[in-house]
């Protein structure tokens, strides 16, 4: 197990080098030069030696491969460069924004798993009843409604009309409620559907008959015997949902005007703030890769047949 985790973590290194390379190349080959943007408020164009001086400062005159090596070397030491627009260290900007995104993503995934698994289990146990139909309805809704539309409706109804929650900002817990619910409910749909079908399959297994023949309560059988088996395929899905969820946080941060990595990424794009954009990309990619390792490791916990 320990060896497995170490092996997986070592494999993160080439992945991150690759991510850095792709981000690096894309940004340097893309049209739009951050320096010309930076100096665009000069009325009659910027003096060429000033431009050159700035290019020198940001290392943009070096050959591309050297820029890449510098970038990676600095990144390893925790320095992701300096934001062209704000002049602040990228690492610091990311550290400032990350907690907001982490709170949103964390709250959403908890809501998604709790709600999805509960709906799925209820639907499976009460198959063919009103409960089943209702939970299928809820998950169809979640699957077919685009997140941005769902988010805007939530703002309109619960913030603008009912004033239950603030419509924008990221300071407090009440700012977190709506975006987290929107993301969580939307991600719970797929989890509910898979939980339902996995649960139905497990409930037909012989070991469930054994559990009943032992005289266990149905509640014990569902929670103690069936759910742990049914959760194994759901775990895969949760891993996949992380990706969708991280994308969703960008949308929610925009709709709810929240601080966070998504906002940081979007503003860095509109301002052609290459170091900032690249830094956020790196961090998001690293988080995604690490979360997937965590999911894979947790398999071993749920399924003793998996040997790591």
């Amino acid at each position, binding site marked *: 197990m320990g060896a497995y985790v170490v092996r997986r973590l070592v494999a993160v290194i080439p992945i991150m080098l690759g991510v850095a390379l792709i981000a690096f190349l894309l940004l340097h080959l893309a049209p739009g030069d951050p320096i010309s943007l930076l100096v665009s408020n000069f009325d009659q164009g910027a003096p060429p030696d000033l431009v050159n001086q700035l290019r020198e400062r940001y290392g943009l005159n070096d050959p591309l491969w050297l820029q890449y090596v510098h970038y990676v070397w600095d990144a390893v030491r925790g320095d992701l460069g300096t934001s062209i627009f704000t002049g602040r260290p990228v690492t610091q900007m990311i550290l400032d924004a990350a907690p907001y995104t982490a709170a949103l993503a964390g709250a959403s995934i908890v809501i998604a798993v709790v709600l999805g698994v509960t709906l799925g289990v209820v639907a499976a146990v009460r198959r063919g009843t009103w409960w089943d139909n209702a939970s299928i309805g809820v998950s169809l809704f979640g699957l077919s409604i685009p997140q941005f539309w769902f988010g805007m409706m939530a703002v309109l109804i619960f913030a603008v009309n009912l004033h239950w929650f603030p419509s924008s900002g990221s300071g407090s817990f009440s700012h977190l409620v709506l975006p987290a619910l929107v993301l969580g409910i939307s991600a719970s749909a797929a989890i509910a559907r898979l939980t339902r079908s996995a649960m139905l399959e497990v409930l037909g297994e*012989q070991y469930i008959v054994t559990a009943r023949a032992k005289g266990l309560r149905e509640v014990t059988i569902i929670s103690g015997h069936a759910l742990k088996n049914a959760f194994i395929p759901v775990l895969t899905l949760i891993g996949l949902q992380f990706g969708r969820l991280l994308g969703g946080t960008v949308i929610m941060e925009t709709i709810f005007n929240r601080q966070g990595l998504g906002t940081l990424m979007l503003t860095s794009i509109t301002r052609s703030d290459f170091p900032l954009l690249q830094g956020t990309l790196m961090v998001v990619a690293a988080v995604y890769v690490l979360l997937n390792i965590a999911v894979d490791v947790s398999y071993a916990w749920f399924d003793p047949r998996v040997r790591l």
Partner: protein
Amino acid sequence: MTSSIMAPPLLDVRDLRTEFTRGKRKVLAVDGVSFSLGVGEVLGVVGESGSGKSVTMLSLMGLERPTGGSVRFDGEELLDLDEAGMRRIRGNRIGMIFQDPMKSLNPVLTVGRQLMEPLRVHRQLDRRAARKRAVELLAMVGIPGAALRVDDYPHQFSGGMRQRVMIAMALSCEPAVLIADEPTTALDVTVQAQILELIGSMQRELGMAVIIVSHDLGVVAGMADRICVMYGGRVVESGRVEDVYALPSHPYTRGLLGSIPRVEVERGSRLEAIPGSPPDLTRLPSGCAFRDRCRFATGTCALEAPPLVDVPGGGGGHSAACVLDVTPEAWRARTTTAEVA
């Protein structure tokens, strides 16, 4: 065994019926099954696959919903009990093991945890006491290194060892009845004998009654005091093992006996497998369910399903459900004509 004639049986199943709806069709998987089981007695239930043996056992445990009949166990009518009442019986007074030990244990829970469950539920043992008892039970059913293996998962055991775990689990609360539904069918031949041996020795040691179910008459014959032969959801013959062997009275039983090598039936009769395929409950013939495979079927067989009646000249409690004259003389005459033909 004279006392068992006077005392009410431990388990008395009367006219049990269990019906499934498959699509719009009604399927009678158990169609008026009756048998009884005395204290410490071993009953063999035999019949080809699909004859309703498993559904019968699940029905009397309340694990399938019977549509009618009566199951009296130790003076209590089980079919009248609610869920909580049935839970008190299951795994406590009646233990059950199944055909495929590879599928009967929960793959994600340790065998110890699964063994402890009935002890904690029925005996209210605390965790430590239940664990200690679980180790004892594993040792009792012959699992080497029980104290170490209690924390292992099912996949770390072989098929035979898993069936031992199942037996330990079913016996954990010292039930009055053990139902073993095809306990050896999924196992290697060498292991089969060991598991049967284990069930036999546990039965003698704990003095419990056993219902052993098999499609193989050979499996139950060595162990059972009495046997029930099932076909198409009904009991077609039942009686003490010696009596049924000495005078198999239903053509189906004769077929089953014929398909076991080495068994001496009647002099002059030849060894024969039963022609045709096992019954499909969705299209059973009218009357006697076996008549489409029976060499001796006549027009009367189509009229109604014959009831179980005492076999003339058979031992006490030997009965068969066939319209034929099932006396030894009649059978001798039939088999010799068949031989000539």
